[in-house]
């Protein structure tokens, strides 16, 4: 693996794990004993399914197990990708501070694409009103202070595709 992953130990999945990923990436069966049902399909016990899922959770292969809501159905109509041009000397400390704000759901450093794209810090916010976005953008700007030289907010206006990860067979 490339050096960019050096902070994490890469989790190696065996073929059984991969079959389990394929069997569950679209969702869990809504039955009282879902692990047993998945195990039946894959030729293993429910106990083994649980053990492998627990292992993948511990290794970070699974972030979490639960419900994935549709933002729009919950009334979050203003989904803003806020992007910031932050002094490289301070971006890591400030990125961590922005990521720690309770309303920021994702926060990353990404490369600039000059001259078209001067922004290196990306933070997502999800709001029910436009005014709320403006308030939150103001709060992020307050954290960044003088280290920030420019910003934009890109609103999503249409979902063109949303399937999530799909491992091929």
């Amino acid at each position, binding site marked *: 693996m490339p050096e960019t992953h050096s902070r994490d130990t890469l*989790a190696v999945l065996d073929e059984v794990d991969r079959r389990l990923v394929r069997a569950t990436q679209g969702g869990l069966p809504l039955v009282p004993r879902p692990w047993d049902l998945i195990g039946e399909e894959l030729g293993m016990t429910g106990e083994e399914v649980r053990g492998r899922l627990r292992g993948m959770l511990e290794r970070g292969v699974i972030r979490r*197990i639960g419900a994935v*809501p549709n933002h729009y*159905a919950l009334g979050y109509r203003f989904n803003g990708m806020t992007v910031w041009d932050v002094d490289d000397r301070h971006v890591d400390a400030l990125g961590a501070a922005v990521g720690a704000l309770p309303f920021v759901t994702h926060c990353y450093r990404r490369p600039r694409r000059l001259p078209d794209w001067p922004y290196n810090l990306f933070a997502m916010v999800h709001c029910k009103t436009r005014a709320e976005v403006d308030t939150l953008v103001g709060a992020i700007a307050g954290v960044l202070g003088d280290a920030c030289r420019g910003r934009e907010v890109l609103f999503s206006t249409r979902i063109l595709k949303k399937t999530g990860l799909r491992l091929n067979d």
Partner: protein
Amino acid sequence: MGRRPVEPVDLDEADRRIINGLQGGFPLSERPYAEAAGALGLEESELIDRLQALLDRGVLTRFGPMYQIERMGGAFVLAALSVPEADYERVAGQVNALPEVAHNYRREHALNMWFVLAAETPAGIGRAVAAIEAATGLSVFAFPKEREYFVEMKLRA
């Protein structure tokens, strides 16, 4: 997969408890719905029925494990295109046709199409970028993440 409403949906108090309480931490016990229902003050069968209804109504897009492809040796890369308005629908179709495109959003900016590529290997990302450039005739702006400061996509209902 249920419908995908774009307007807010009416939810009762128990639905809200489920959405707010179950965006993670689903137990790996023998009867996980029974255990999760107990914590939410519901019966097992009621939780299962309500999850099914929330999926059918498109309030939830999925119920299950959220996988991190990077921890499996793969890669996620955010990328963008600047698409002429007259070509927007054609280009959206060409981009969406690639299985590596996990999400794609229109955003209001000169870079007006933003998508996430997910591939099982880093080389797969390069192939997907090349395929999109060949199909659309446009240059892909790739924004691989250099640092992840925070990710926790949880929304309150």
